[in-house]
């Protein structure tokens, strides 16, 4: 397997991770072609027009975890990518006692001094835990059996960074909270229900989890790791601008990109990937095939279970990939008015999650195949900072709504409108009269996301970020180090370690892995 993997490289999917991976490989001298099914590159990180004159970020709308090493290696800032100004998180309160959360400080009328102090300490301590995990996140996850030297090094670095990076008492505390739920941890630390509610959102968003779900501390740390080196922002021009810049970098490095090109099959001969077949019937030969698509798409649809060992195929089949977040896009003739918020504040990240019970209740519905009657909302109005997204004086609102299970018992067909109405009615409670200004809307349920973005289950992370589907088990063991049972076939997207979000890390790690396996020759 370590022998040189020669011949042109084909990357299935032009999501941001495919673009990152492609750039690294092209910069190492490989001939790389990206085949993207959609008419635009970017996948979940793109900008779409959902009504004439109105554009928003299609799925991901807040940049909070873009990896600095990736930015530096690919010289993204000189490629003209603008992240936009750093934004706060504002926790909405119906009574107008909103909270403003920054990386290290929280403020708000209703807050006690002890909560304000505790927030600073809490964020500092938890960011330290998150950073201690960095050796694990920026490398291929070590295999526990048959480790290679790099695996041992990663584990040693991890041990070092946990033990000495944290110190004995922090280490003890880290081991204590690592496996428990965010609900218990936040109750220990804070008093304000609203403060606890919005922090809990960061631990559960995108996953089939409520605050009381075990290991939500780990998902929270994953989010914090991103935040620790990437202040959250709303990129001007939408998330598509970021991937457009990535595509330019890739193009300059020699990567060729074909959009509107859906791969129907990954061709395998004698256990080795030899190319792809497009939906059009066209065949493209390759020495190396890298998939940015999720694991079920890659293995079950494109490779096909019969080409794989039975148990491996079964493991892929049983991974949990049902998405839980819907996206609502609103075109508005005017800005909503929220009591106590200035226009500038309206342009921040707005959260509706009044307390942890609210979040847990919202999740309860998802457990039984229902959408939340009172969903958790993450709202942005990107047109405040970037008026070009809407006609003059008009605005666009982009909302991620949890929880909206992929397998809705009653079926999404009948409930599409009802759920969108329910979200709007909820916002109306905070912004009375705002709905009168809505001129167009688009709701993407996880089912819509699946069909429009080619992501199985429409899942935020291409698969749950639970401990059994993380690290050396992501997406499943047997393909957790970016290589797969099919030689010459690799994974480079969110399905692989360390998971989803606009980070570029899976793409980076996959490229490093491929080059380390001799693929750079």
């Amino acid at each position, binding site marked *: 397997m370590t022998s040189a993997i020669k011949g042109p490289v084909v990357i299935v999917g032009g999501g941001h991770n495919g673009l990152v991976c492609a750039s690294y490989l092209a910069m190492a001298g490989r001939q790389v072609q990206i085949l993207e099914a959609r008419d635009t590159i970017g996948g979940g990180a793109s900008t779409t027009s959902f009504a004439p004159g109105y554009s928003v970020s299609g799925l991901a709308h807040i940049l909070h975890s873009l990896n600095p090493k990736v930015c530096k290696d690919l010289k993204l800032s000189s490629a003209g990518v603008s992240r936009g100004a750093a934004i706060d998180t504002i926790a909405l309160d119906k009574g107008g006692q909103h909270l403003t959360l920054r990386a290290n400080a929280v403020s708000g009328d209703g807050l006690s001094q002890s909560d304000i102090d505790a927030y600073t300490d809490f964020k500092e301590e938890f960011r330290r835990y998150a950073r201690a995990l960095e050796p694990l996140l920026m490398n291929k996850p070590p295999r526990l059996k048959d480790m290679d030297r790099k695996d041992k090094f990663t584990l040693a670095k991890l041990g070092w960074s946990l033990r000495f990076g944290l110190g004995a008492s922090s280490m003890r505390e880290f081991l204590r909270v690592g496996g428990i739920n965010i609900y218990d941890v936040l109750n220990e630390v804070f008093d304000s229900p609203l403060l606890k509610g919005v922090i809990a959102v960061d631990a559960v968003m995108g996953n089939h989890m409520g605050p009381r779900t075990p290991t939500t501390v780990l998902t929270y740390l994953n989010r914090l790791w991103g935040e620790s080196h990437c202040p959250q922002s709303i990129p001007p021009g939408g998330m598509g601008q970021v991937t457009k810049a990535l595509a330019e970098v890739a193009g300059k490095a020699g990567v060729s990109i074909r959009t509107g090109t859906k791969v129907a099959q990954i061709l395998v001969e004698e256990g080795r990937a030899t190319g792809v077949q497009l939906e059009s019937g066209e065949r493209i030969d390759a020495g190396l095939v890298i998939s940015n698509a999720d694991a079920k798409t890659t293995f079950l649809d494109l490779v096909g*279970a*019969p080409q794989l*060992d*039975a*148990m*491996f*195929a079964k493991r892929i089949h049983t991974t949990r990939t049902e998405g839980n977040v819907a996206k609502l896009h609103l075109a508005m003739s005017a800005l909503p008015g929220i009591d106590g918020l200035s226009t500038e504040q309206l342009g921040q990240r707005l959260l509706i999650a009044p307390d942890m019970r609210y979040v847990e209740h919202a999740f309860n519905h998802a457990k039984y195949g229902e959408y939340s009657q009172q969903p958790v909302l993450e709202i942005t109005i990107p047109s405040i900072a970037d008026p070009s997204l809407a006609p003059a004086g008009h605005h666009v609102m982009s909302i991620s709504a949890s929880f909206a299970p992929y397998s809705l018992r009653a079926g999404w067909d009948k409930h599409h409108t009802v759920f969108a109405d329910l979200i709007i009615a909820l916002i109306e409670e905070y912004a009375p009269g705002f709905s009168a200004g809505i001129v167009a809307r688009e709701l993407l349920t996880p089912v819509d996301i699946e069909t429009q973005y080619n992501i199985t289950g429409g899942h935020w992370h291409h698969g749950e970020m639970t401990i059994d589907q993380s690290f050396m088990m992501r997406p499943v063991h*047997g393909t957790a180090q970016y290589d797969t049972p099919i030689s010459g076939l690799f994974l480079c997207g969110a399905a692989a370690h360390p998971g989803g979000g606009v980070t570029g890390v899976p793409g980076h790690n996959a490229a490093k892995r491929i080059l380390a396996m001799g693929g750079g020759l």
Partner: protein
Amino acid sequence: MGSQPRQQAGEHDFRQVLQPSPFHARVEEHNLVKNWMSWNGYQTARTYDTLASEYFAIRSSCSVMDMTPMEKYRITGPDALKFLNRLVTRDISGLKPNRVTYVVWCNDDGKVLDDGTIFHLNSGEYRLCSQHHQLDWLLISSLGMDVTIEEETHEVAAISVQGPTACSVLVAAGFTDLSELKPFSISHTLLNGFEVMISRTGYTGDLGYELWVDPGNALALWDAVFGVAQRGLYDVRAIGLGALEMVRIEAGFIMPGDDFNTAEVTVRAGHDRSPFEVGLGWLVNFDKPHFTGKQALLREKNQPIKRRLVKLSVEGNKAPADSFLYDSKKGRRIGTVKVHTWSPILKANLATADIEYRNGVAPAQIWAEIYYQKELEWQATWAQCTVSTEPFWSHPRRLTTPPERY
């Protein structure tokens, strides 16, 4: 069927721990010593009378064994062949309708889950027989394929008719045109108005047939075969699993789960076995489309073999039960005996054993340390063992068509 109530397997009283087979009424009559055992949950005779008489029925006249408990699966649908070929290590794409083949299948690591036979019944319809319950694995293996898998263990009754006079007995029982049936072939015929499927297959290394019927016709089939003996034409004897064990060791057939640990029930690493390690390397075909375990087996093939299941003839007549094996008398331990039998017809002490190979090479000598009792006193002795690469017993009769008539 007449007055006989239909013995529906699978519908027996739950208080009955063991399930009666559709042949049970007759099996019970023939079973003089009431020596029962469980085979896949069925009440099965270990011996009917004496081991010797049953053994010699197989080797010198005609034996009948109730093999209903054998696990049976019906595989149908557009991808039936594709499914089976991805399941097993052998290339079965050339298996014609009305033909049978012996196969083995592995998990992802190339370790044996079970062995069995595939019957190509009609064009595109197959029956898979296995030693152990395999439904889970078959369903797992069916992911992404348009195939229907139905367990039919309880829906098909079967007897195995084996021995030199098997053909003569069946002809006398009313089966016509049996003589042209080749080894591993299937024929469908009518007996007294009911359908019988006959395959020229078996587990004895001699001439023999397996007869498959609807459970409702089981007793009628039994009576037709034993009617031959009642009419004084040929000796026909019911045999149990005890005698079968003797002849299958003679014939060099292996029994997953007895001769080696199957992968499904292996917990500790290194205690499962690959086809190469159990002497079934000849069933592994790397030139066919992907099958489960292929990559692992390719890797293993390029390494020196670490151990093998071997056929041993052991000097003397002391039973090498569970014996440790050494590379010389009192030398280094290199393996253990898994199963053994005294072969009355060969006058030989036979065993199947798991032996370590060093750098891919078989040990130059194998010695068994045998513990045996003499008038209730334990004694120990050493016996040299010789590896046989051929089955100890394989009579030309097994393959001759038409079979000799007696």
